[in-house]
């Protein structure tokens, strides 16, 4: 595990995920009848919901990832630091700098 390249890390996580998914699929029935899960029937965790969840786990994973990406980027853009003052300050400072340079003998 010394120096995993980034893509190898992703690959490992992908393989791990596939293993979890496969296990879930093969043991679907025992998951559906797992006492704590059966008890949450009220919040919509019916056996059929569990079935859909587990069968299409990769899709849900991709959708979740996509939503996370989308909202992260939209949040960043919405809270983006616009700084028009910086441009104004720069314009002012350019005037000052030009005067200093002229005084020091610079020929524009």
């Amino acid at each position, binding site marked *: 595990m010394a120096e995993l390249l*980034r893509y190898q890390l992703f690959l490992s996580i992908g393989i791990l995920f596939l293993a979890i998914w496969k296990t879930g699929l093969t043991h679907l029935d025992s998951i559906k009848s797992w006492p704590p899960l059966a008890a949450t029937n009220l919040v919509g965790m019916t056996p059929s919901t569990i079935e859909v969840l587990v069968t299409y786990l990769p899709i849900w994973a991709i959708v979740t990832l996509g939503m996370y*990406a989308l909202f992260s980027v939209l949040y*960043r853009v919405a809270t983006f*630091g616009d700084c028009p*003052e*910086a441009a104004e300050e720069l314009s002012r400072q350019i005037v000052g*700098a030009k005067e200093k*340079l002229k005084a020091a003998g*610079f020929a524009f």
Partner: protein
Amino acid sequence: MLYSIILPTYNERDNLPLITQFIHDTFTTAKLNYEIFVVDDSSPDNTLDVAKSLQQIFGKDHFQIVSRPGKLGLGSAYSAGLEACSGQRIILMDADLSHHPKFIPEMIAVMDNSDNNKKKVDIVSGTRYLKGGGVAGWDTFRKLTSCGANFLATFLLSTGGASDLTGSFRLYERSAIELILPQVHSKGYAFQMEILVRAHKAGMKIGEVPITFVDRIYGESKLGANEIILYLKGLLQLFFTT
């Protein structure tokens, strides 16, 4: 402690005098020693002549010029400047006034203060994406592409939490940049990303200072489909090789 500021230039005859004056003012006020190293790639607009007159005004102690026979790329410009300069700390920044030297003392403070803390900061990156930082002159589309690209890069690459991967305004300990630069082979935006990725891989700590970036609105847009494809290629290359 001498600070070397390496300024690669290509057609910057108008901006070079101004950025030089700004750097001079910042360092004089902060009472720090500096030297500017202009690396000019035979600019057709005679930036070299402008550089020579600036050298007369500011002195060879503060202003040095490396003139190269042609457009040889940013990475080699940095290497040429690094080889020639004598500072213990190196600042790499743009010469087109999009970066303001006033943030340099803040970067230095972050680097100095890290000596007392748990881990020594070897690189301080100017970030446009943290609170206090930002950009002047970007429309929503530009912001979307930039934030999207940055998100993709931080997801796909390992950079220890750096918030601005494509920024080019950074302060380096000489040892850090000397170690990393020879390892970097990407071109374009990915170049700056690769520096941070390799630094993180080498165990270096990257500090951050929010900066304001003033995008000069020229006629040409530097963000065409070509640039985007180049960026994605560079990103994937780093994904598979680091």
